[in-house]
């Protein structure tokens, strides 16, 4: 029986090995974790400001964005092919 399969070009000599299934699953889990933690919120209450000026929820969001930036770097380095 024959099935159509997408043609993948050869890797360039400098390319690293593409991400395997395990790494893809780990990446998907990281994305899901980020989506879940995006739904959280932090109450300010009487707490002091982070670094003396930043509300807690704002500080949490900035930290979340830095974590998301790390995931984006991972995606562009390992999962996104270099070839056309």
């Amino acid at each position, binding site marked *: *029986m*024959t*099935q*159509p*399969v*997408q*043609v993948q070009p050869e890797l360039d000599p400098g390319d690293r090995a593409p991400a395997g299934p395990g790494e893809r699953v780990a990446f998907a889990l990281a*994305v899901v974790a*980020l*989506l879940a933690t*995006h*739904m959280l*919120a*932090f*109450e*300010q209450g009487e707490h002091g*400001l982070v670094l*003396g*000026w*930043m*509300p*807690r*929820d*704002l500080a*949490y*969001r*900035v930290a*979340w*964005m*830095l974590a*998301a*930036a790390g*995931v*984006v*770097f991972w*995606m*562009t380095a390992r*999962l*996104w*092919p*270099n*070839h*056309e």
Partner: protein
Amino acid sequence: MAEYGIHVAVVVAYFLVVLGIGAAAFRQSETTAEDYFLGGRTAKTVVLFMALFGTNVTPFVLMGIPGLAYHHGVGVFGLNAAIVVLGIPLTFWLIGYPAWIAAKRTGAVTPAELYVRRFGVRWIGYLMFAVFFAYTVPYMVTAVAGVGIAADTLSGGALGYAPATGGILVITLLYTSLGGMRATMWTNVFQGAVFLGFTLLAFFLIGDRLGDQVGLGADGLRGLMTRIHADNPRLFEVPREGPFAPGEWASWALAIALTVIAFPHMMVRIFAAKDVEALKNACRYYPLAMILLWVPAVLFGVWATVEHPGLVGKESDAVFPMLIFDHLGPVLQGLALAGILAAVMSTLDAQLLTLSSMLTRDVLPAGLDERRQVQLGRVFLVLVAGLTWAVVLARPASIFKIAKLSFSGYVTLVPTLFLGLRWRRFTVAGAASSIVLGNAVLLLTWLEVVPKAAQLGLLPVAWGLLAAIAGAVAGSLLSPPTSPSVAEAVLGPVREATTTPSP
């Protein structure tokens, strides 16, 4: 009056630089449609990143977001800024990257043109053009209205809303119609730098000066934030009601994470990328730039509650220029206006050019020579600008509300954009039913023909997206497949692999 003269001088200097860049781009341009509409597909990392960043950053951020934060506090940051740093790179990878490959392979210049080739029927291009047009005009209205509000506030009413909005459209038309995409990308580098640079400068100067005046327990920014925390603690909380209730929060996250890839002017910028590395780098730099831009934008709105309490509804759209007027000198006020102009022009130029290219490539009769296409594109630019100005003068709602409708509408196109590139069984009937059903449901829920109580706490965009997905899948499975040769021309070849069937 002397201050007004300084504002004008700074803004004129800014315009001269932009027009100079546009003229330089014009000198390098060729007369082919690909060069005019896509800059010859030569955008490298810096140009592409600034083009994407500039196209993504509009008065929605500098005017609409402070206006919203004025009413709702710092929760606006989590609601609007955070999720896009993940959503936009993901959609660039899943949709933008295969679209870029397919556009290079087929020579497509516009998103609608790419999907016309994907399905081999011209009418899908008309439908996509209609939807892109319907949601891009309101988005352009938010940009131009933002300039009008800023110019009116910073000039103390001397410049006026109507002349300012008309003026910005004329200037943008001039350099866009001359230099095409190459001009818009080159000017975006300058405009993005002005925009981001001024925002950061204003953040530190206004925070410091306002904090020195009203601070509590400390000078500068720390004193200012301590004072607001003491006087108005609700601005530091996420209330979990209204737009912050979980259902609305999640559906708005969906909207802003998915909408950007469906901006036609964004997709065209992706088509203009020189190589994969440029696309990847744009995604890598994007999160940091978003943090630098959005933290100030939200805090401007929170700070304005100290000196300008009691603003109602869309009145708060003007809080950023109000702070500038109160705390910065005339040169920086002029620079502020230039910064807002930069934000507007960097988006407006791309939107105008993309609508123009879609009309000439996807709607006008096929077979026109390329020189004629460019000429007609320029005429259409003028007509769209006129329509935009008419709506701007009517200004039917706040910047945020208009943008919300626009973003929600673009999201209904995402299933078509994604499945068209990732699922060979996706058919033109699937695309059409997805677009029609998605927009019908969006409208029915937006206008509350379906009562709000029946929407289960979700925003109309979530229902529109669900309907679009259902329409795409059902329409495709119930219609005959696209001819393999048509799909392969866009998606590339498939090879035959022999597999052993399971016993």
